[in-house]
Protein backbone atom coordinates (compact mmCIF):
# COMPACT_ATOMS: atom_id res chain seq x y z
CA UNK A 1 0.00 0.00 0.00
CA UNK A 2 1.67 3.19 -1.10
CA UNK A 3 -1.03 5.62 -0.07
CA UNK A 4 0.05 8.59 1.98
CA UNK A 5 -3.11 8.61 3.93
CA UNK A 6 -5.82 6.12 4.74
CA UNK A 7 -8.03 5.08 7.63
CA UNK A 8 -9.23 1.57 8.35
CA UNK A 9 -11.62 0.60 11.10
CA UNK A 10 -12.57 -3.02 11.64
CA UNK A 11 -15.36 -4.01 14.03
CA UNK A 12 -14.40 -0.91 15.93
CA UNK A 13 -16.27 -0.53 19.21
CA UNK A 14 -15.93 1.76 22.16
CA UNK A 15 -17.46 1.08 25.54
CA UNK A 16 -17.24 3.90 28.05
CA UNK A 17 -16.97 2.69 31.61
CA UNK A 18 -19.20 4.69 33.92
CA UNK A 19 -17.52 5.56 37.17
CA UNK A 20 -19.13 7.19 40.12
CA UNK A 21 -18.04 7.29 43.73
CA UNK A 22 -19.95 4.01 44.00
CA UNK A 23 -17.18 2.38 42.08
CA UNK A 24 -14.45 3.84 44.18
CA UNK A 25 -11.37 2.48 45.82
CA UNK A 26 -13.29 1.46 48.92
CA UNK A 27 -15.64 -0.65 46.86
CA UNK A 28 -12.79 -2.13 44.87
CA UNK A 29 -10.94 -3.06 48.04
CA UNK A 30 -14.04 -4.39 49.74
CA UNK A 31 -15.01 -6.50 46.81
CA UNK A 32 -11.55 -7.99 46.65
CA UNK A 33 -11.64 -8.66 50.38
CA UNK A 34 -14.99 -10.33 50.17
CA UNK A 35 -14.34 -12.05 46.90
CA UNK A 36 -16.95 -9.96 45.18
CA UNK A 37 -19.86 -11.87 46.69
CA UNK A 38 -20.80 -8.84 48.72
CA UNK A 39 -21.76 -6.84 45.65
CA UNK A 40 -23.47 -9.48 43.66
CA UNK A 41 -26.50 -7.33 43.09
CA UNK A 42 -24.50 -4.64 41.27
CA UNK A 43 -23.64 -5.37 37.63
CA UNK A 44 -19.90 -5.90 37.48
CA UNK A 45 -19.12 -2.81 35.45
CA UNK A 46 -21.73 -0.54 33.88
CA UNK A 47 -20.63 0.64 30.47
CA UNK A 48 -22.03 2.72 27.70
CA UNK A 49 -21.56 1.53 24.15
CA UNK A 50 -20.64 4.70 22.29
CA UNK A 51 -19.51 3.10 19.05
CA UNK A 52 -20.75 -0.25 17.89
CA UNK A 53 -18.85 -2.44 15.41
CA UNK A 54 -17.90 0.28 12.97
CA UNK A 55 -16.32 -0.80 9.71
CA UNK A 56 -14.81 1.98 7.67
CA UNK A 57 -12.38 2.29 4.80
CA UNK A 58 -11.37 5.83 4.01
CA UNK A 59 -8.89 6.61 1.28
CA UNK A 60 -7.20 9.61 -0.25
CA UNK A 61 -9.62 12.01 -1.81
CA UNK A 62 -12.49 11.07 0.47
CA UNK A 63 -14.52 13.86 2.03
CA UNK A 64 -16.66 12.17 4.62
CA UNK A 65 -19.57 13.77 6.41
CA UNK A 66 -20.85 12.40 9.70
CA UNK A 67 -24.49 13.10 10.29
CA UNK A 68 -26.58 12.20 13.30
CA UNK A 69 -28.38 13.29 16.43
CA UNK A 70 -26.75 14.47 19.61
CA UNK A 71 -25.18 11.48 21.27
CA UNK A 72 -25.13 9.37 18.12
CA UNK A 73 -21.36 8.95 18.42
CA UNK A 74 -20.03 11.53 15.94
CA UNK A 75 -17.63 13.21 18.32
CA UNK A 76 -16.50 9.95 19.86
CA UNK A 77 -15.72 8.64 16.39
CA UNK A 78 -13.72 11.77 15.58
CA UNK A 79 -11.78 11.44 18.83
CA UNK A 80 -11.12 7.81 18.09
CA UNK A 81 -9.84 8.74 14.63
CA UNK A 82 -7.60 11.32 16.27
CA UNK A 83 -6.11 8.48 18.29
CA UNK A 84 -7.25 9.71 21.67
CA UNK A 85 -9.60 6.80 22.38
CA UNK A 86 -8.35 3.36 21.51
CA UNK A 87 -10.90 0.70 20.57
CA UNK A 88 -12.20 -1.45 23.40
CA UNK A 89 -12.62 -4.12 20.74
CA UNK A 90 -11.80 -4.26 17.05
CA UNK A 91 -8.98 -2.42 15.36
CA UNK A 92 -7.96 0.88 13.84
CA UNK A 93 -5.15 1.90 11.53
CA UNK A 94 -4.53 5.50 10.58
CA UNK A 95 -1.82 6.57 8.19
CA UNK A 96 -1.10 10.23 7.80
CA UNK A 97 -0.69 13.17 10.10
CA UNK A 98 -3.95 14.10 11.74
CA UNK A 99 -5.12 17.60 12.55
CA UNK A 100 -8.08 17.48 14.86
CA UNK A 101 -10.14 20.64 15.00
CA UNK A 102 -12.52 19.34 17.60
CA UNK A 103 -12.48 21.73 20.50
CA UNK A 104 -11.56 25.34 20.00
CA UNK A 105 -10.52 25.90 23.58
CA UNK A 106 -8.02 23.05 23.79
CA UNK A 107 -4.60 24.25 24.85
CA UNK A 108 -5.66 27.88 25.13
CA UNK A 109 -5.02 29.80 28.31
CA UNK A 110 -6.93 32.85 29.42
CA UNK A 111 -4.05 34.59 31.12
CA UNK A 112 -1.56 34.05 28.33
CA UNK A 113 -1.18 36.56 25.50
CA UNK A 114 -2.41 35.92 21.98
CA UNK A 115 1.14 35.19 20.84
CA UNK A 116 1.70 32.68 23.61
CA UNK A 117 -1.59 31.06 22.78
CA UNK A 118 -0.54 30.65 19.16
CA UNK A 119 2.45 28.66 20.37
CA UNK A 120 0.44 26.70 22.92
CA UNK A 121 -2.32 25.79 20.54
CA UNK A 122 0.19 24.99 17.80
CA UNK A 123 2.17 22.67 20.05
CA UNK A 124 -0.91 20.86 21.26
CA UNK A 125 -1.97 20.43 17.64
CA UNK A 126 1.33 18.67 17.03
CA UNK A 127 3.31 21.41 15.29
CA UNK A 128 7.00 21.83 16.07
CA UNK A 129 8.20 25.15 17.51
CA UNK A 130 10.09 25.77 14.27
CA UNK A 131 6.98 25.25 12.21
CA UNK A 132 5.01 27.56 14.47
CA UNK A 133 7.63 30.28 14.28
CA UNK A 134 7.67 30.17 10.51
CA UNK A 135 3.90 30.52 10.38
CA UNK A 136 3.54 32.99 13.24
CA UNK A 137 3.04 36.09 11.10
CA UNK A 138 0.70 34.38 8.71
CA UNK A 139 -1.43 33.19 11.64
CA UNK A 140 -1.43 36.63 13.23
CA UNK A 141 -2.43 38.28 9.95
CA UNK A 142 -5.20 35.84 9.34
CA UNK A 143 -6.67 36.30 12.80
CA UNK A 144 -6.92 40.09 12.18
CA UNK A 145 -6.40 40.63 15.88
CA UNK A 146 -3.59 43.16 15.52
CA UNK A 147 -2.63 44.75 18.82
CA UNK A 148 -4.87 42.41 20.75
CA UNK A 149 -2.29 39.67 20.30
CA UNK A 150 -0.22 41.34 23.01
CA UNK A 151 -3.13 41.22 25.42
CA UNK A 152 -4.20 38.26 27.55
CA UNK A 153 -6.72 35.99 25.88
CA UNK A 154 -9.31 36.56 28.61
CA UNK A 155 -9.76 40.13 27.37
CA UNK A 156 -10.96 38.80 24.00
CA UNK A 157 -14.57 38.41 23.08
CA UNK A 158 -15.57 34.82 22.44
CA UNK A 159 -15.67 35.52 18.72
CA UNK A 160 -12.10 36.78 18.82
CA UNK A 161 -10.95 33.72 20.73
CA UNK A 162 -12.49 31.47 18.13
CA UNK A 163 -10.77 33.44 15.37
CA UNK A 164 -7.39 32.95 16.94
CA UNK A 165 -7.96 29.24 17.52
CA UNK A 166 -9.20 28.89 13.96
CA UNK A 167 -6.22 30.72 12.52
CA UNK A 168 -3.75 28.45 14.33
CA UNK A 169 -5.62 25.21 13.78
CA UNK A 170 -5.98 25.70 10.06
CA UNK A 171 -2.28 26.44 9.68
CA UNK A 172 -1.35 22.82 10.42
CA UNK A 173 -0.13 20.79 7.49
CA UNK A 174 -1.86 17.47 7.74
CA UNK A 175 -2.98 14.59 5.57
CA UNK A 176 -6.17 14.09 7.52
CA UNK A 177 -8.38 16.76 9.04
CA UNK A 178 -11.12 16.12 11.51
CA UNK A 179 -13.72 18.83 11.98
CA UNK A 180 -16.45 18.99 14.54
CA UNK A 181 -19.16 21.44 13.69
CA UNK A 182 -17.42 24.72 14.39
CA UNK A 183 -17.52 26.30 11.00
CA UNK A 184 -19.38 29.38 12.05
CA UNK A 185 -16.63 31.59 13.36
CA UNK A 186 -16.60 35.28 14.01
CA UNK A 187 -18.62 37.98 12.36
CA UNK A 188 -19.86 37.93 8.81
CA UNK A 189 -16.73 39.17 7.06
CA UNK A 190 -14.53 36.79 8.99
CA UNK A 191 -16.89 33.96 8.32
CA UNK A 192 -16.45 34.37 4.60
CA UNK A 193 -12.71 34.37 5.03
CA UNK A 194 -12.89 31.32 7.27
CA UNK A 195 -15.00 29.47 4.76
CA UNK A 196 -12.63 30.10 1.92
CA UNK A 197 -9.72 29.06 4.13
CA UNK A 198 -11.48 25.85 5.02
CA UNK A 199 -12.28 25.13 1.40
CA UNK A 200 -8.67 25.74 0.51
CA UNK A 201 -7.61 23.39 3.27
CA UNK A 202 -10.08 20.77 2.17
CA UNK A 203 -8.67 20.89 -1.35
CA UNK A 204 -5.07 20.39 -0.33
CA UNK A 205 -5.77 17.81 2.36
CA UNK A 206 -6.12 14.21 1.14
CA UNK A 207 -8.75 13.18 3.70
CA UNK A 208 -11.37 15.23 5.47
CA UNK A 209 -13.99 14.10 7.95
CA UNK A 210 -16.61 16.52 9.12
CA UNK A 211 -19.32 16.03 11.71
CA UNK A 212 -22.37 18.26 11.47
CA UNK A 213 -26.07 18.56 12.13
CA UNK A 214 -26.50 20.51 8.93
CA UNK A 215 -27.41 18.36 6.00
CA UNK A 216 -26.96 21.23 3.57
CA UNK A 217 -23.42 21.88 4.62
CA UNK A 218 -22.54 18.21 4.38
CA UNK A 219 -24.05 17.90 0.91
CA UNK A 220 -22.06 20.92 -0.16
CA UNK A 221 -18.59 19.90 0.97
CA UNK A 222 -18.52 16.14 1.30
CA UNK A 223 -18.43 13.32 -1.21
CA UNK A 224 -20.13 10.83 1.07
CA UNK A 225 -22.33 11.18 4.13
CA UNK A 226 -22.45 8.56 6.84
CA UNK A 227 -25.53 8.44 9.03
CA UNK A 228 -24.87 7.59 12.63
CA UNK A 229 -27.44 6.34 15.06
CA UNK A 230 -26.84 4.92 18.55
CA UNK A 231 -23.16 4.48 17.82
CA UNK A 232 -23.75 2.55 14.61
CA UNK A 233 -23.36 3.45 10.99
CA UNK A 234 -26.71 3.18 9.32
CA UNK A 235 -27.21 1.38 6.03
CA UNK A 236 -23.79 -0.12 5.87
Amino acid at each position, binding site marked *: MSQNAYIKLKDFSIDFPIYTAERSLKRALMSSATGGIFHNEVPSRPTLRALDSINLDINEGDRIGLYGHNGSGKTTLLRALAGAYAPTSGS*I*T*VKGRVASLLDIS*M*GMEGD*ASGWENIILRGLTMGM*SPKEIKSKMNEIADFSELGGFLDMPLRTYSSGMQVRLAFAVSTAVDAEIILLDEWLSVGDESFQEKAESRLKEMVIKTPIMILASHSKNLLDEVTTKTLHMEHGKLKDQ
Partner: protein
Amino acid sequence: MDKSRSFYSVGEKVPLLRLATEDFWSGLKNYQLWMFLGWQDIRQRYRRSVLGPLWLTLTTGVTIAMLGLLYGHLFKMPNDVYVPFLATGIIVWTFMVGLINEGCEAFMQSDMMIKQVRNPLSTYAFRTVWRNSIILAHNAVILIPVWWLFPKSLDLIGMLTVLLGLVVIAFNGVLISITLGALTTRFRDIGPIVTNIVQASFFITPIMWLPSLLQSKGVGAILIDLNPFFHLIEIVRSPLLGNDVSVNSWLYVLGISGANLAIALFVLGRFRYRIPYWL
Protein backbone atom coordinates in the same frame (compact mmCIF):
# COMPACT_ATOMS: atom_id res chain seq x y z
CA MET B 1 9.25 14.32 10.52
CA ASP B 2 8.61 12.06 13.46
CA LYS B 3 7.25 8.84 12.04
CA SER B 4 5.11 8.11 15.09
CA ARG B 5 3.10 11.24 14.30
CA SER B 6 1.90 9.91 10.99
CA PHE B 7 1.12 6.29 11.76
CA TYR B 8 -1.18 4.84 14.36
CA SER B 9 -2.53 1.37 14.74
CA VAL B 10 -4.32 -0.39 17.57
CA GLY B 11 -5.98 -3.75 17.55
CA GLU B 12 -3.29 -6.37 17.25
CA LYS B 13 -1.90 -7.81 20.44
CA VAL B 14 1.27 -5.95 21.29
CA PRO B 15 3.49 -7.14 24.15
CA LEU B 16 2.99 -4.94 27.22
CA LEU B 17 6.65 -4.16 27.56
CA ARG B 18 6.95 -2.97 23.97
CA LEU B 19 3.91 -0.77 24.27
CA ALA B 20 5.27 0.73 27.48
CA THR B 21 8.80 1.36 26.27
CA GLU B 22 7.56 2.83 22.99
CA ASP B 23 5.34 5.23 24.86
CA PHE B 24 8.16 6.16 27.21
CA TRP B 25 10.69 6.88 24.44
CA SER B 26 8.35 8.78 22.21
CA GLY B 27 7.23 10.72 25.27
CA LEU B 28 10.85 11.64 25.99
CA LYS B 29 11.32 12.67 22.35
CA ASN B 30 8.28 14.89 22.67
CA TYR B 31 10.41 17.23 24.81
CA GLN B 32 9.50 20.35 22.89
CA LEU B 33 5.92 19.95 24.00
CA TRP B 34 6.46 19.05 27.66
CA MET B 35 9.17 21.61 28.19
CA PHE B 36 6.93 24.37 26.91
CA LEU B 37 3.92 23.16 28.87
CA GLY B 38 6.01 22.84 32.04
CA TRP B 39 7.28 26.40 31.68
CA GLN B 40 3.80 27.57 30.92
CA ASP B 41 2.56 26.01 34.18
CA ILE B 42 5.08 28.05 36.15
CA ARG B 43 4.37 31.23 34.22
CA GLN B 44 0.68 30.68 34.75
CA ARG B 45 1.08 30.38 38.50
CA TYR B 46 2.92 33.65 38.88
CA ARG B 47 1.40 35.77 36.15
CA ARG B 48 0.76 39.37 37.18
CA SER B 49 2.90 38.97 40.27
CA VAL B 50 5.86 41.33 40.58
CA LEU B 51 8.37 38.81 41.88
CA GLY B 52 7.03 35.96 39.77
CA PRO B 53 8.73 32.60 40.29
CA LEU B 54 11.17 34.31 42.65
CA TRP B 55 8.42 33.79 45.21
CA LEU B 56 9.49 30.14 45.17
CA THR B 57 12.99 31.13 46.20
CA LEU B 58 11.74 33.53 48.80
CA THR B 59 9.26 31.11 50.38
CA THR B 60 11.84 28.36 50.69
CA GLY B 61 14.36 30.88 52.00
CA VAL B 62 12.03 32.04 54.74
CA THR B 63 11.17 28.46 55.73
CA ILE B 64 14.83 27.50 55.97
CA ALA B 65 15.78 30.64 57.90
CA MET B 66 12.99 30.19 60.43
CA LEU B 67 13.43 26.45 60.92
CA GLY B 68 17.19 26.87 60.95
CA LEU B 69 17.12 29.40 63.78
CA LEU B 70 14.48 27.67 65.85
CA TYR B 71 15.47 24.03 65.53
CA GLY B 72 19.18 24.76 65.56
CA HIS B 73 18.56 26.31 68.95
CA LEU B 74 16.27 23.48 70.13
CA PHE B 75 18.71 20.79 69.10
CA LYS B 76 21.61 22.91 70.46
CA MET B 77 23.48 22.52 67.19
CA PRO B 78 26.05 24.93 65.83
CA ASN B 79 24.61 26.88 62.89
CA ASP B 80 27.39 25.90 60.51
CA VAL B 81 26.40 22.24 60.91
CA TYR B 82 22.65 22.54 61.15
CA VAL B 83 21.72 25.22 58.62
CA PRO B 84 23.46 23.69 55.56
CA PHE B 85 22.07 20.27 56.50
CA LEU B 86 18.55 21.64 56.82
CA ALA B 87 18.76 23.79 53.68
CA THR B 88 19.92 20.98 51.39
CA GLY B 89 17.47 18.52 52.95
CA ILE B 90 14.47 20.82 52.55
CA ILE B 91 15.33 21.69 48.97
CA VAL B 92 15.69 18.07 47.87
CA TRP B 93 12.61 17.10 49.86
CA THR B 94 10.52 19.85 48.26
CA PHE B 95 11.57 18.51 44.86
CA MET B 96 10.50 14.97 45.74
CA VAL B 97 7.21 16.03 47.32
CA GLY B 98 6.34 18.00 44.21
CA LEU B 99 7.09 15.02 42.01
CA ILE B 100 4.95 12.67 44.07
CA ASN B 101 1.98 14.93 44.85
CA GLU B 102 1.76 16.50 41.42
CA GLY B 103 2.53 13.16 39.83
CA CYS B 104 -0.89 12.01 41.03
CA GLU B 105 -2.43 14.76 38.89
CA ALA B 106 -0.21 14.14 35.88
CA PHE B 107 -2.97 12.84 33.62
CA MET B 108 -5.94 14.62 35.15
CA GLN B 109 -4.26 17.96 34.67
CA SER B 110 -4.03 17.35 30.92
CA ASP B 111 -7.39 15.66 30.45
CA MET B 112 -8.53 18.00 27.68
CA MET B 113 -5.52 17.14 25.58
CA ILE B 114 -5.55 13.44 26.36
CA LYS B 115 -9.16 13.16 25.25
CA GLN B 116 -8.60 14.93 21.95
CA VAL B 117 -5.15 14.40 20.54
CA ARG B 118 -2.77 11.51 20.42
CA ASN B 119 0.40 12.02 22.38
CA PRO B 120 2.48 9.48 24.24
CA LEU B 121 0.99 9.41 27.73
CA SER B 122 4.41 9.68 29.34
CA THR B 123 4.57 13.19 27.83
CA TYR B 124 2.41 14.36 30.72
CA ALA B 125 4.61 12.66 33.32
CA PHE B 126 7.61 14.44 31.81
CA ARG B 127 5.69 17.70 31.97
CA THR B 128 5.17 17.26 35.73
CA VAL B 129 8.84 16.47 36.29
CA TRP B 130 10.02 19.36 34.15
CA ARG B 131 7.81 21.80 36.02
CA ASN B 132 9.19 20.59 39.34
CA SER B 133 12.76 20.76 38.03
CA ILE B 134 12.20 24.43 37.27
CA ILE B 135 10.95 24.92 40.83
CA LEU B 136 14.02 23.08 42.11
CA ALA B 137 16.29 25.41 40.15
CA HIS B 138 14.65 28.39 41.81
CA ASN B 139 14.91 26.88 45.28
CA ALA B 140 18.53 25.92 44.76
CA VAL B 141 19.44 29.63 44.65
CA ILE B 142 19.04 29.56 48.46
CA LEU B 143 22.18 27.47 48.68
CA ILE B 144 24.33 30.39 47.51
CA PRO B 145 23.93 32.54 50.66
CA VAL B 146 24.00 29.42 52.83
CA TRP B 147 27.31 28.37 51.32
CA TRP B 148 28.64 31.88 51.59
CA LEU B 149 27.83 31.99 55.31
CA PHE B 150 28.89 28.43 56.04
CA PRO B 151 31.46 27.33 53.44
CA LYS B 152 31.65 23.66 52.48
CA SER B 153 34.21 21.99 50.29
CA LEU B 154 32.50 20.93 47.11
CA ASP B 155 34.84 19.60 44.41
CA LEU B 156 34.10 18.64 40.81
CA ILE B 157 33.41 15.00 41.68
CA GLY B 158 31.01 16.18 44.35
CA MET B 159 29.17 18.42 41.92
CA LEU B 160 28.88 15.64 39.36
CA THR B 161 27.55 13.36 42.07
CA VAL B 162 24.92 15.93 42.99
CA LEU B 163 23.90 16.20 39.36
CA LEU B 164 23.72 12.44 38.98
CA GLY B 165 21.64 12.22 42.15
CA LEU B 166 19.18 14.80 40.85
CA VAL B 167 18.86 13.00 37.52
CA VAL B 168 18.14 9.76 39.36
CA ILE B 169 15.44 11.48 41.45
CA ALA B 170 13.92 13.07 38.34
CA PHE B 171 13.92 9.71 36.56
CA ASN B 172 12.10 8.17 39.51
CA GLY B 173 9.75 11.15 39.37
CA VAL B 174 8.73 10.31 35.81
CA LEU B 175 8.09 6.72 36.82
CA ILE B 176 6.10 7.56 39.93
CA SER B 177 4.04 10.11 37.95
CA ILE B 178 3.09 7.39 35.50
CA THR B 179 2.14 4.92 38.24
CA LEU B 180 0.40 7.31 40.63
CA GLY B 181 -1.05 9.35 37.77
CA ALA B 182 -2.75 6.26 36.38
CA LEU B 183 -3.94 4.99 39.77
CA THR B 184 -5.29 8.37 40.85
CA THR B 185 -7.11 8.83 37.58
CA ARG B 186 -8.93 5.57 38.17
CA PHE B 187 -9.35 5.82 41.95
CA ARG B 188 -9.73 9.43 42.97
CA ASP B 189 -9.01 8.67 46.63
CA ILE B 190 -5.40 7.77 45.96
CA GLY B 191 -4.31 11.42 45.68
CA PRO B 192 -5.27 12.47 49.22
CA ILE B 193 -3.92 9.19 50.61
CA VAL B 194 -0.55 9.81 48.98
CA THR B 195 -0.47 13.41 50.20
CA ASN B 196 -0.97 12.25 53.76
CA ILE B 197 1.69 9.58 53.57
CA VAL B 198 4.15 12.08 52.14
CA GLN B 199 3.30 14.61 54.84
CA ALA B 200 3.93 12.05 57.56
CA SER B 201 7.19 11.01 55.93
CA PHE B 202 8.55 14.52 56.28
CA PHE B 203 8.63 14.20 60.05
CA ILE B 204 10.06 10.69 60.27
CA THR B 205 12.76 11.28 57.69
CA PRO B 206 16.00 12.95 58.83
CA ILE B 207 15.47 16.36 57.26
CA MET B 208 14.88 18.61 60.26
CA TRP B 209 16.87 16.34 62.55
CA LEU B 210 20.26 14.75 61.99
CA PRO B 211 20.46 10.97 61.61
CA SER B 212 23.17 10.98 64.29
CA LEU B 213 20.51 11.93 66.84
CA LEU B 214 19.04 8.44 66.57
CA GLN B 215 20.66 5.21 67.59
CA SER B 216 21.36 2.99 64.65
CA LYS B 217 19.31 0.17 66.08
CA GLY B 218 15.59 -0.30 66.60
CA VAL B 219 13.49 2.65 65.49
CA GLY B 220 16.55 4.37 64.09
CA ALA B 221 17.21 1.49 61.74
CA ILE B 222 13.69 1.68 60.37
CA LEU B 223 13.53 5.45 60.02
CA ILE B 224 16.96 5.68 58.47
CA ASP B 225 18.24 2.46 56.94
CA LEU B 226 14.91 1.27 55.55
CA ASN B 227 13.54 4.70 54.64
CA PRO B 228 13.62 5.16 50.85
CA PHE B 229 13.26 8.94 51.20
CA PHE B 230 16.37 9.06 53.36
CA HIS B 231 18.54 7.37 50.75
CA LEU B 232 17.12 9.43 47.89
CA ILE B 233 17.91 12.60 49.82
CA GLU B 234 21.33 11.34 50.83
CA ILE B 235 22.59 10.88 47.27
CA VAL B 236 22.24 14.64 46.78
CA ARG B 237 22.67 16.00 50.29
CA SER B 238 25.86 14.16 51.25
CA PRO B 239 28.02 15.43 48.39
CA LEU B 240 26.62 18.94 48.89
CA LEU B 241 27.80 18.82 52.50
CA GLY B 242 31.21 17.65 51.39
CA ASN B 243 30.74 14.00 52.38
CA ASP B 244 30.79 10.80 50.38
CA VAL B 245 27.57 8.98 49.60
CA SER B 246 27.54 5.59 51.29
CA VAL B 247 27.51 2.56 49.02
CA ASN B 248 24.52 1.38 50.98
CA SER B 249 22.50 4.42 49.89
CA TRP B 250 23.43 3.96 46.23
CA LEU B 251 22.45 0.29 46.36
CA TYR B 252 19.18 1.18 48.00
CA VAL B 253 18.43 3.85 45.40
CA LEU B 254 19.30 1.40 42.65
CA GLY B 255 16.79 -1.03 44.11
CA ILE B 256 14.07 1.61 44.39
CA SER B 257 14.65 2.74 40.81
CA GLY B 258 14.48 -0.82 39.52
CA ALA B 259 11.23 -1.55 41.31
CA ASN B 260 9.81 1.81 40.29
CA LEU B 261 10.73 1.15 36.65
CA ALA B 262 9.18 -2.30 36.62
CA ILE B 263 5.92 -1.06 38.14
CA ALA B 264 5.67 2.01 35.89
CA LEU B 265 6.31 -0.01 32.72
CA PHE B 266 3.70 -2.55 33.75
CA VAL B 267 1.14 0.18 34.49
CA LEU B 268 1.92 2.00 31.24
CA GLY B 269 1.76 -1.15 29.14
CA ARG B 270 -1.36 -2.47 30.79
CA PHE B 271 -3.34 0.76 31.03
CA ARG B 272 -1.96 2.94 28.22
CA TYR B 273 -5.22 2.71 26.31
CA ARG B 274 -7.49 2.67 29.36
CA ILE B 275 -6.39 5.90 30.99
CA PRO B 276 -8.26 8.22 28.57
CA TYR B 277 -11.45 6.39 29.51
CA TRP B 278 -10.89 7.04 33.20
CA LEU B 279 -10.59 10.80 32.82
